[in-house]
């Protein structure tokens, strides 16, 4: 046992000098870097939010961490183990279920009912047992989807589908969860509800979360720490610890006295 010291905790997830160039149509690397020399670290149980302008490369960054896209340079590490580097990068999506990914589109399977979508992670890996069902039902209940188990995605509102996509990732407990503007295309009221749902779920589970958004208010209200991404080639240009105590209610965060200053500072950086 190491004694508790002021030594910084080794990060659960670390990204070092990450770079990405997409291949041009003729197959060669294009000249311009979408991401360049990007480094960040996330400790266990931390809720990090990442803001950046649209087209900055936020999705590209998450894709590389989730192992569905390859970096052109740099290194991605999980618990000190290298997942991918610019040189060696054989894709292993989700890194054996260690990294969950809630994408901007819900990507629910349209032919499956809601409950079968939520149970899908068990079906593809390990099998659906009573414990899995219980867990799925508890999560559906926590986000107000009870009663809609046997509906198909097209029969539900956008907000409900987002909730289903969210708990489909929470249900199998990946230690790291990436979220790419998961509450993008819903109305303000639903969005607030979803954000509060996410916070209460997170309080129960305390996963490590990297949450990408272009909404600065959302980044402040949800995160322990806000990282600011520059325009392309993207790198981290700002870091803001958020000292607002938890449990938080999103609507209350917006009326805190420190909120406007924080917002203005980040706003200025995002540019």
């Amino acid at each position, binding site marked *: 046992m190491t004694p508790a010291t002021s030594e910084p905790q080794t990060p659960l997830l670390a990204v070092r000098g990450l770079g990405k160039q997409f291949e041009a149509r003729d197959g060669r690397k294009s000249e311009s870097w979408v991401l360049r020399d990007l480094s960040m670290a996330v400790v266990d149980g931390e809720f990090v939010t990442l803001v950046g302008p649209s087209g900055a490369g936020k999705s590209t960054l998450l894709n590389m961490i989730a192992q569905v896209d390859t970096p052109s340079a740099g290194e991605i590490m999980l618990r000190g183990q290298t997942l991918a580097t610019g040189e060696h990068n054989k894709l292993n999506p989700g890194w054996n279920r260690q990294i969950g*990914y809630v994408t901007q589109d819900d990507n629910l399977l349209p*032919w499956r009912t809601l409950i079968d979508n939520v149970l*899908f992670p068990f079906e*593809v890996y390990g099998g659906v047992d009573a414990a899995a069902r219980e867990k799925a039902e508890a999560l559906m209940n926590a986000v107000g989807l009870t009663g809609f188990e046997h509906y198909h995605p*097209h029969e539900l509102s956008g907000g409900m589908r987002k909730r289903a996509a969210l708990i489909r990732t929470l249900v199998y407990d990946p230690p790291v969860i990436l979220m790419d503007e998961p509450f993008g295309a819903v109305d303000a009221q639903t969005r607030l509800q979803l954000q509060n749902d996410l916070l209460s779920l997170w309080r129960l589970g305390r996963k490590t979360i990297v949450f990408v958004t272009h909404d600065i208010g959302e980044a402040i209200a949800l995160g322990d720490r806000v990282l600011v991404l520059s325009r392309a080639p993207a790198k981290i240009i700002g870091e803001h610890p958020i000292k607002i105590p938890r449990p938080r209610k999103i609507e209350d965060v917006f009326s805190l006295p420190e909120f406007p200053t924080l917002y203005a500072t980040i706003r200025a950086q995002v540019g």
Partner: protein
Amino acid sequence: MSIQRIVDRILVGVILLALWQLTSLWIGFYWVSSPLQVAQRMVAWLSDGTLFTESGYTIGSALIGFTLGAVPGAVIPFLLRRRPVLAAILDPYLVAGYATPKLALTPLLIVWFGIGIWSKVALVASISFFLIFFNTQAGVRGISPQLIRMAEILGARETKVARLVVWPAALPYILAGVRVSLPFSISGTAIAEMLSANHGLGYLIQASAVSFDPTGSFTAIITLTAILTIVNILVNRSERRIFNWRPAAAAFGRPKGALG
């Protein structure tokens, strides 16, 4: 459907039958038979079992051939999904095979497989293989890469992806292929039976015609029509059952309930 609609439909049917009866009175039973004679023959051939035996040959050949063609036609696109190089090499040959007018092969198939059911089976297999293959391939290729990626992130490996994502996504396309090729299998069999056979509804149509028995031909044609109609209804029903999750507006193919 309203009562009025049913009455109107029956009325149109009666008029058509009356026109047929009048035509035959005018130019002679000898050429066009008549509804009454066909009805009598239908009863006779049903009671002596002729229609059951001959339909059995036609349906049996069609189903065996359809299965032999449709199963590989539906499976091979799944195998080629992860082998793009092989798929690209085979592509022109498959396209050529699809373009070949299969009915034109019938004389050769009869030389190779004889006048029994196997030449019909071979014909139908070659027809349904290409129809199902290209439909399935369109489905497999059209699947959203995001859905596959999502399944992989959730821990699905190749066989699970194929079974739980690609298969259900491609199923509407496979069934669209079935909807076209299953009825085509039956009419294709009948046409091959007309060319050379000693059994089957196609044979019955042909043999009756050449022995100046239009009543026999009409009876066999009507039986064939009834079989095809039933097959179409069954295919549509099973499709509706399988796709009951779909939003009505996006339903595959024809608008559902448009006749209701």
